[in-house]
């Protein structure tokens, strides 16, 4: 089981600073959002994760990403 999966990554608000808005990346099967959060250098000390969505639905960091998934990461934001 060492197949690769194609993932679309979307970043928002301050997470875009020095990174990107949207990118398509290839990961190993079994990759979780947490792996990608670590790879991006998003940590608890500075702008910890606020909201994580996979295919427009809220998911947990441990979710196993599937081929073609879109992962969206947001710091804590709000308004109204």
């Amino acid at each position, binding site marked *: 089981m060492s197949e690769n999966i194609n993932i679309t990554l979307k970043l928002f608000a301050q997470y875009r600073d020095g990174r990107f808005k949207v990118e398509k990346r290839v990961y190993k099967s079994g990759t979780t959002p947490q792996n990608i959060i670590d790879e991006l250098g998003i940590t608890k000390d500075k702008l910890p994760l606020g909201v994580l969505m996979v295919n427009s639905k809220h998911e947990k960091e441990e979710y196993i990403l599937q081929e073609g998934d879109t992962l969206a990461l947001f710091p804590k934001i*709000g*308004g109204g």
Partner: protein
Amino acid sequence: MADKIYRVNMKELSFKIEDVPNHWMGLGGRGLTSTIVAAEVDPECHPLGPNNKMVFAPGLLSGTSAANSGRNSLGAKSPLTGGIKESNVGGTIAGIMAKLGVKALIIEGIPEDNSTFYHIHVSRDNVEIVQVPELVGKDNYFVLDSMEKKYSKKVAVMTIGRPGEMKMLVSNISVRDPKGKLRSHGRGGLGAVMGSKKIKCITVDAQNYKEVSYEDSEKFKAASKIFTKALQNNPISGEGLPAFGTNVLVNIVNEAGGLPSRNFRTGNSENAEAICGETMAENIKERGGSTTHGCHSGCVIQCSQTYNDKDGNYLSSGFEYEMIWAFGANLGINDLDLIAKIDALMDDLGLDAIEMGVCLGLAVDASILKFGDGKEAYRLIKDEVAKGTPMGRILGSGTGNLGKLYGLVRVPVVKNQSIPAYEPRAIKGQGITYVTTPMGADHTAGYAVATNILNSGGFVDPLKKDGQVELSRNLQIASAAIDSTGMCIFVAFPALDDPACLPALIDMLNARFGISLTGDDVTNLGKTILKTERAFNLKAGLTSADDRIPEFMKYEALPPHNVKWDFTNEEIDEFWNF
């Protein structure tokens, strides 16, 4: 000197200054305006007739040094919803009224001579009511300039533009902010109520007040420090809102499939990236302007901004998510600068950005304009609505009435008030707030988006029905109480997640008045306010059948999640079981 009730009679053109009755003493803001409206306004009265009243009241902490305490409430019977309305606003008015000792300003009656408009000036122990023929037909910034020249740069001003004079249901009441720009008592057509009373503007003297007193100033200072810190340390109120403004929501709500687009046909907009808070912040950085601006003095969140065009010239301020959504996603304008131009025009005219924007979104279905045609939207507002042409009157009557006139079925209103920027089918807790709040579709009444989308105060899945009624109820109770303190609703973000925040707020109330409120007392206050408002609406003729979502949302599935509104009537009505 104890606070007083200032009562103005527009029929007699007279005023009285009254002692505050004991049972109103512990109330402020929404708690006070809704209590007075319920006690003094016949629920069956015509909202634009002689028996409606306008009640302005600063919050319990307004005028103090507490951060973010500068919201002023206005209560009346709404000509848009036919029910009770409380609309609160920033600006300088709340602090100045509180320091002047005005517990509430009640305006009743209609002048017998309705050939002109009046200006009401409130100062210590006095109210002047003078005719202002020179201001008739003028808009808000003209009035602001005149009043600043007449009094001082600091005078508090509340004013209506031409749509308010014409008693249009999309008209609001605009309030001067600390930088001389405008904020609004936006919703419910309250500009029309002011117009019906022939009041062009109200000013409050900002030169001869005294600071508010504290029963225990040391305790107040200590609690205030903790409260301010809670606002500053919270990632939303301390970082996200100052950096991106409320418009940071476009992308997250769009990503969640809950951004109403094309008159509520989809939950995604192709324009999201063009109009989002991140793009707005980039433009501000490139062009000058400012991402931070407080709508009232003492605000430590600074979610508002100054937005310039490509050449660095001022376009607008107070450029908020709701407005940008209505014109950008729902009506489809993909040019943020043009949306800013429309925003500034609506500020000057005094139009509710949500009601006007949603109405124009529906006007696409009526073939009045084309989807995405921002130039025509601007023209319709400037040349039709502002001038009161027949087409302007039609659009100025709001979304519900436009739908009736054109035989449209997909009309996004609850209690005749336009649904704001969160799709009720895809953000179901927010939908419960829209249908149950006594205000008509209103996002601030119980902001379930926080817990449905933003992971504030936990998480309740936005696409499922479970837990939504309870969530909305708890938020509406808390919001009614917060709306009584004069606090900005964004204190809810730290309050939901930081255990130090709410106790500090209650400690400030206790130290200010020498009382001993508990958390339960505050919850009970919120419950009482909601029940008072609901009772008014029932007497006004509204029923449970008005606590419903537009029918098309029950049979049309909303992409991308393909969700319908699926609450039963019994599930909705359970809301009031408290």
